[in-house]
């Protein structure tokens, strides 16, 4: 079988630090290569080389047998390589068809006007190929995340892409959208297009890819057909040692005291009579698909979104008309799924982020802050979280890795010693090592008597950590699983909904 892309001996270093040591891999037409590895393992560097952003120091790339050495991103595009990033590069204020051609509009009869008819026809054709039934003139702002991703794929197709690289494509998709995406990828493969699929979601990688390459510390740690790469093997190749389980054992049993009691929480279109309880020292997993209402529920409890009716009690005390301030005051902490947008002040230092939610504890009379104390508590937080740096007063969090950022978020909340910690996707986008760290912290938290409401897209994670699992679907709690070991299939079935998905979105 012919090869579409052949990469061999790719080497690259930044500031004297070698980040890629002679990496080889091959993508065949009509095949998907899964590229996995922890953050910093060299995935993004190799993709940046492929995309013409960086140039390698050694190694060659051949595309369809031809030498391929892109000097800039345009070269990559014209060579037929397309990227679908986690953060989509679409312009919400432009229409779908305009987005497809924004950097190279066809001209109308050689005049400096856009040939509207041509772009409409071409757009309709590629939209049809990705099974997206929308008008080409629809503004992208009106599309859901999944639809936007399909538009990105359509854009790649409209440029006659031969190789499409997906970078964490599923993180913000609902399950039906993920399924739809996988269907499209299969279609692309059938057309002979090569795929490189990068993700931390190893199950997805297995579901999509034909072969898998694992990177560790800039080396190719292992490669092979997907059939020979079960998840356990991938993980052990990624971290360099075999891991039986990355989930820590639960040391303590849940207590009696109910720290969170939600009763009949309703909001038209979002939640219907949701009731749940979390006890001290208990981890309650909330299983549900993206868009099932799980994050919305968390946001309502925390006072970020309004709800129409229902009651929330924290430690027995009612929390009326919650606002984040009131919720925090009552002892709730909330790790949001959007770390960069909501979890951290990226331009602020670690120390500033550490105390931002607990300023009263480091403030003296008249609200004057005690900078020495801020520094010491932040350093202490950094130590207990195993942060990569102890320069808490100098380092801005935007310069930290995803895992370290997440630790800062958790550390910031732990300073308040929350009675209830709501964790929405705490391990999204962070590598296995950091994940383990986060699990350890969650476990320690319950040992101290905090209740945890854990939301995750990874069923394994829920099963590995929770004392109890609730499934939410279409804004309703549809099932409860009380005893370990949990039945993975049953949870999945409940989460995907007994009733058919209707895909209502505004």
């Amino acid at each position, binding site marked *: 079988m012919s090869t579409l892309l052949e990469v061999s001996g790719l080497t690259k270093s930044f500031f004297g630090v070698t980040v890629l040591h002679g990496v080889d891999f091959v993508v065949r037409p009509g095949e998907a290569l899964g590229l996995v590895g922890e953050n910093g393992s060299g995935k993004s560097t190799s993709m940046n080389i492929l995309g013409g952003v960086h140039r390698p120091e050694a190694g060659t790339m051949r595309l369809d047998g031809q030498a391929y050495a892109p000097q800039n991103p345009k070269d990559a595009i014209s060579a037929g390589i397309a990227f679908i990033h986690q953060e989509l590069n679409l312009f919400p204020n432009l229409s779908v068809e305009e987005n497809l051609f924004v950097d190279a509009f066809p001209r109308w009869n050689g005049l400096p006007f856009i040939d509207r008819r041509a772009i409409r026809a071409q757009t309709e054709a590629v939209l049809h190929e990705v099974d997206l039934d929308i008008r080409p003139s629809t503004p992208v702002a009106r599309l859901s995340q999944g639809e936007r991703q399909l538009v990105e794929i359509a854009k790649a197709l409209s440029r006659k892409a031969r190789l499409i690289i997906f970078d964490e494509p599923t993180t913000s998709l609902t399950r039906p959208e993920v399924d739809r995406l996988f269907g499209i990828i299969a279609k692309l493969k059938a057309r002979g297009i090569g795929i490189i699929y990068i993700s931390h979601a190893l199950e997805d990688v297995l579901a999509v890819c034909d072969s898998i390459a694992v990177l560790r510390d800039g080396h190719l740690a292992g490669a092979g057909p997907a059939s020979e790469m079960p998840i356990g093997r991938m993980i052990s190749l990624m971290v360099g040692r075999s891991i039986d389980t990355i989930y820590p054992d639960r040391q303590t049993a849940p207590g009696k005291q109910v720290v969170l009691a939600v009763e009949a929480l309703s909001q038209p279109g979002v939640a219907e009579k949701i009731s749940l309880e979390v006890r001290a020292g208990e981890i309650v997993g909330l299983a549900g698909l993206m868009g099932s209402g799980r994050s919305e529920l968390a946001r309502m409890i*925390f006072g*970020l979104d309004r709800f129409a009716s229902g009651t929330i009690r924290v430690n027995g005390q009612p929390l009326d008309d919650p*606002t*984040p*301030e009131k*919720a*925090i*005051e009552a002892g709730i902490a*909330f790790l*949001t799924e*959007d770390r960069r*947008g*909501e*979890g*951290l*002040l*990226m*331009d*602020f*230092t670690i120390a*500033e982020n550490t*105390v*931002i*939610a607990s*300023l*009263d504890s480091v*403030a003296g009379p*008249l*609200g*004057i*802050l005690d*900078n020495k104390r801020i520094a010491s508590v932040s350093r202490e937080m950094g130590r207990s979280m195993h942060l990569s740096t102890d320069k808490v*007063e*100098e380092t801005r969090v935007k310069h930290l890795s995803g895992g370290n950022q997440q630790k800062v978020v958790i550390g*910031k909340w732990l300073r308040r010693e929350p009675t209830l910690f709501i964790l929405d996707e705490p391990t999204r986008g962070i590598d296995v090592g950091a994940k383990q760290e986060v699990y350890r912290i969650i476990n320690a938290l319950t040992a101290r008597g905090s209740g945890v409401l854990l939301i995750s897209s990874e069923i394994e994670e829920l099963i590995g950590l929770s004392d109890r699992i609730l499934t939410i679907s279409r804004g309703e709690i549809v099932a409860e699983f009380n005893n370990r070991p949990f039945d993975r299939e049953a949870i999945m079935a409940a989460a995907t909904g007994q009733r058919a998905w209707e895909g209502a979105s505004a």
Partner: protein
Amino acid sequence: MTITPVAETATGATQPPSVLRRLGRLMLSEYFVLVLCVAYVLAIAPFVPEILSWEVASNILSDMMPLLVVAIGQTFVLIIAGIDLSVTAIVSMSAVVGASVMTGTGGYLGDTAFAVPGAVLAMLFTGLVIGAINGFSVIRLNMPSFIVTLATRMFFAGAAVWYVTFHSTSSSIANLPESFAEFATGHLFGIPLTVIAAGLIAVVAHVVLSRTRFGRAVYAVGANPRAARVSGIPVERTILFCFLISGVCASVAATIYVSRMQTGSPIVGENILLDVIGAVVIGGTSLFGGKGKIVWTVFGVLFLLLLDTSMKLLGASLFAIYIIKGGVILLAALVDVARNRWLVGR
């Protein structure tokens, strides 16, 4: 917010000679605008030697004060990524309201013992009310602050002119109590009262911004309101407070103006808007929020005043003042950009 770039840049593989290094370090420090001030004085002194006289220095100091107070208020608003264009109208409106309260010719409290305190309260209240209108419009009506304050500026500038017609036969309100004038002319321990007042405001504002919970909230809201909200910071209240602070600061400036002119004029402060915003931004405060300091603002105002005063002393014509002022603003911005690039490059 206390780290300076200096700490990070102090180490380098190739160490330039010590003087140069120190100079370089100074360029990169937050005293940069102050360095510019000194450089400017140096450059201009041969032409207007008076600029180094005690009298001119004290003039600059007292001329700075009203502008500084307004600029301090503006700093708060800029840090939350807003802008307050209405400060000039707040100055005018407060001035005429205050004057109408205390004037001896038909003032509400004229010739009573409460004339001065009543007037000062009325002025502060005016600033507070307009600030509140701005703040509530931004947080409740979801309006961009640029437009809100553009509209309130137009409204209250017009209202101030109209207001005078009900309280005076001329175009301004005079005959104010002597005791009020003392605010502008009086001294305490040899320091002008206005300098003490403005200095106090600056110190309080500095402490509030850099050392208090509220200050942290202001920066957080400016940097990322969503993240601030999730961290339990009362975003809307913080925004409202910043506009209130700006309003009150503008009305404090009005008390200084009214006192020094002994007149409540509806056009006082009309022209200071671009100076105020220019000064704050020259100081280094970002128009995009999240970044700014009171000391920077003090330096920015000082710089602008030095420029203005030297032009006055030179007797430069209006057009020369315009060209030089514009040119210097541009130059300062350019140097700042170069400096930041250098910082990032290292």
